[in-house]
């Protein structure tokens, strides 16, 4: 099964040029609000296969990686 899941994201583009993802829209229509972005680093995802900017996001108490690869967002399947 494909481990790279592209997702729709609502994000805030700040005046200073920085970018903060706010909400992930899952394919079944569910919206996941991102409570906090704890780290932003360039990183590869060996699991999903890709590389870009990795946002470590807290979503209802859990930490998940959200990657911005060029213009598209993806997450890794599973925990």
């Amino acid at each position, binding site marked *: 099964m494909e481990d790279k899941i592209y997702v729709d994201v609502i994000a805030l583009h700040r005046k200073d040029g920085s970018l903060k993802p706010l909400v992930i829209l899952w394919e079944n229509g569910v919206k996941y609000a991102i409570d906090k972005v704890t780290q932003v680093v*360039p*990183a*590869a995802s*060996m699991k999903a*296969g*890709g*590389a870009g900017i990795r946002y470590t996001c807290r979503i209802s108490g859990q930490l998940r990686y959200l990657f911005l690869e*060029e213009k598209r967002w993806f997450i890794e399947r599973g925990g």
Partner: protein
Amino acid sequence: MERVILHCDLNNFYASVEALHQPQYRHVPMAVGGDVEKRHGIILAKNPLAKKAGVQTGEALWQARQKCPDIVILPPRFSLYLRFSKMVKAIYGRYSDRIESFGIDECWVDVTESVRLFGSGAVIADEIREAIKREVGITASIGVSFNKIFAKLGSDYKKPDATTVITRENMEQIIYPLPASDLLYVGRSTARKLEKIGVYTIGDLAKCNLALLKRRLGKWGEYLHYFANGEDHSPVIVSDEEPMIKSIGNSTTAPKDMVSLRDVSIVTTVLCESVASRLRDHQFKATVVTVYIRNKELESFTRQVSLEYPTDISRELITAAMNLFSANVDFRIPLRSIGIKASGLLYHDRPIQLSLFVNQKEREKELAIDHAFDQARRRFGFYCIQRGCAKEDTLLSGFNPKADHVIFPESYFKAGDH
């Protein structure tokens, strides 16, 4: 002060990027190869499992399949590799602004001024390798030395994902036993010449009599002697984000062998149109035209000519190239690949001396034709308009070098650039 130079080589670059993106191919023999249908069928890069099976970069796809029947061959995605190459260069940029690219997957980085900030060359090399692994998801081998030539030998010495430090103290031990052909600029024919005078290793070369080398190999003999002794003082050329363009070229392996000047002229026309169009895109005119010729026996050579007037006109490139072909090819062995390179570039708006003996009106007309081609192709696609001769053999003319080849086999023309 002794320089500290890194040479960073991304291991199996194309194959590594593909393996990152397609995890299902990480544990099977896999290679990235050209288009089989159009005969650009060679292995461009392979993963370690394919290497173990004996697959070599540069060999035909069918040869690779013979050695390794279950090999997976993926088509190349050059724009993806360019993006990864840029990401890696950004990492080098954290340690130095003196970065010189050598192809898409190799760079020299001069960190002489950075060692007090970041630690020794080896420390920086290890940090860079870690960062590439973590952020880009591929591996690199890095050579650290006091000159560019030895740094490059170092990056080849241990692969993948390793750092090799070559100092004045250990150079005899590490470098001297290596075959002379490992040295940059020692190709097949130079290696043969060296063997004739009993020079097999880099150590032999370093100890060889300079006068003898000069007699046999000319000025290159002298250079190679210096290189082998670690006396390479060439600087790491600081390049901007976009490397300074020194030449623009296109080459192609035709879908069938070219057996006559007529065949060559069809392919040349398409190649020259592309080169001229790219010259105009970059606002350059060329003063030198080089042709690259490779026959069925895979022997290759280049010939070049200086132009009387700087040009970005297809017709003039075609004429210059065809003169070179007709003077240098006899078709006893059919041709497999040809290439056209424009160099000696000048900015297009530089004033030129007009001549009484050249019909400038005619030149402007030819240029207007080229502009019309550019516009039509931009709007309606490459194949919407072609020169008449393209229709004589649509198999030979049916390719779009401007779009198909993002990356040009740099080594083809490398010698001409130095």
